[in-house]
């Protein structure tokens, strides 16, 4: 399955098609350029998938700035997810894992002004962190958004992303002795687990 249709890593967000500029993403890019130089690796501010790609080592500093800024006030980390992008051929390197953060602000958007405005997009700010597949280490943002705790544990459990700088990183959904991380594209179904036979979907 892994060789079927893997897209090269940088192309997650489809083609940067034209369209209105996303105000939240643009403001966040400006803020980060001023406060945390070098944090934004790539900024897509228009089109259907506006997002900021952040350097892994600057992630916590960038998250802190976005959280504390009175204008943006990204007070909630809605979801932490990860996408596996294995390389098409071994010559392309190890491939990448993309950790995606969807941030949202309740402090900024709950005013009446937002409700009256005509534009009612979902208002998410999307951060992406791309790390090599063979060494997927991302600093934890648990210190900024406490809710990221369980999401990070789930991404470790199912995708094998190692979040560093947090007290413990245990599996959350699977048993502690489960082999591997099932959402990796090259994960193979084990033959059995403690004597329970496991039949992969192809064999059913």
């Amino acid at each position, binding site marked *: *399955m892994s060789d*079927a*249709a*893997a*897209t090269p890593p940088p*192309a*997650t*967000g*489809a083609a940067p098609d034209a369209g209105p500029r996303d105000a939240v993403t643009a403001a966040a890019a400006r803020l980060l350029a001023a406060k945390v130089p070098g944090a934004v690796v790539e900024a897509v501010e228009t089109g*259907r*998938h506006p997002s900021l790609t952040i350097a892994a080592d600057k992630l916590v500093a960038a998250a802190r700035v976005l959280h504390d800024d009175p204008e943006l006030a990204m*007070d*909630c*980390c*809605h*979801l932490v*997810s990860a*996408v*596996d992008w294995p390389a098409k051929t071994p010559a392309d390197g190890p491939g990448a894992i993309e950790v*995606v953060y*969807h941030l949202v602000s*309740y*402090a900024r*958007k*709950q005013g009446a002004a*937002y*409700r009256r405005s005509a534009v*009612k*997009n*979902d*208002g*998410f700010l*999307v951060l992406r962190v791309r790390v090599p597949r063979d060494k997927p280490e991302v600093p934890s943002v648990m210190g900024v*958004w*406490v*809710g990221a*705790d*369980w999401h990070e544990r789930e991404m470790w459990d*199912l995708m094998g992303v190692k979040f560093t700088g947090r007290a413990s990183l245990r*599996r*959350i*959904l*699977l*048993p502690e002795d489960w082999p591997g991380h*099932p*959402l990796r594209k090259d994960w193979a179904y084990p033959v059995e687990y403690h004597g329970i036979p496991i039949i992969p*979907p192809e064999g059913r």
Partner: protein
Amino acid sequence: MSHEPVPSVPHVPGVVAPKAPPVVDASDLARALEERSMGQALRTEELVVNMGPQHPSTHGVLRVVIKTDGEVVTALQPHIGNLHRCVEKIGESLPYYQWLPYVDRMDYLAAINNEHGACIAIERLAGIVVPERAEYIRVILAEVQRVASHIFAMGVYGLDIGAITPFLHTFRERERGLDLLDHVAGGRLLYHVVRIGGVKRDLSPEWIDECHAFLDAVEERLPEYNTLLLDNHIFQERTCNIGVIPRELAVGWGVTGPALRASGVDWDTRRDAPYGIYDRFQFEVPVAHSGVAGVVGDCFHRHWVRFKETEQAIRIARQALRDLPPGEIQAKLPKTLKPPKGEAYVRVENPRGELAYYMVADGTDKAWRIRCRGPSFSNIGVMTDVARGALVADLVALMGSLDIVLGEVDR
């Protein structure tokens, strides 16, 4: 006069009768109580207790490991995953059409709302336009489901904290709501009626009449539930000022839905980031404010928000029934759905909070990656911070008020 006391236990050679327990002197008891009130004596050892996974108040198979000092919880760690079946992995190995029945099984008390969100995400990926009538039918079904889910939650919350009667009352109306959905979809809890590009079945005029009757019945019964719960002194004693989730904690943990509004955050996705056709309806978003009873963010307010939301759900459903236009209920779709490369992040307001789907399409008939954000998953995380220092019995009240469904926590 003195004589030998008659032994109550007959003498058996080799067996010694147990000694009678020492009689507690009244003054001893008074002293012990006094010392206890000064916090000096009767300290107990810390004990680690497993609550669940088969505890009736854990709503399924949640296992909470609690450290207790007597009746006080000093630390708590929820352990989840007993129902895990990796819906996301299944979604990557099945075509979009075939994955839809699986989302019903995540939050099995709000299957229509799950389908609604999943269909919107896939439609956004593929650029499908849903016919008007189908949009209205989706809203009607989603709100009937919300009413059924909320009155269920109100009833079992009473059961959690010791009131059995309201449970029986709310189940009477809930079954009527489930029968309605059954008549449309052919299933009691798991429907698979909202499909990509529309809905499976149309609503008949008889169904619409029956739906009106159901909404009227629930509206009429709501004050009755309140007599039993919200206005009940015992209920208020059990829930007011208990399990208070402050606003900052709720936002930081990503708590959503009634629990978030009970903490005083004025946010409802249906109004503030509308999906489908929710921007066409008039409804209010109940937000907890001080002045009802207890403090904002406590168990009482979570129940109160749920009750108020039921009224608003009835209001939305009536408007949708009134405005229901004639026409098609299903968009024309290819036999094999292949959305172009791209991604979508869609959140919908479920009865328990915001359910979100993050989907990445790679141009084939299967999704490259599907990630589901279950509202209960984030809502029970907050428990670790809130329950510290609470009584064990209050922990049950807190857990019940969050209204978790383990099927969606574990996915």
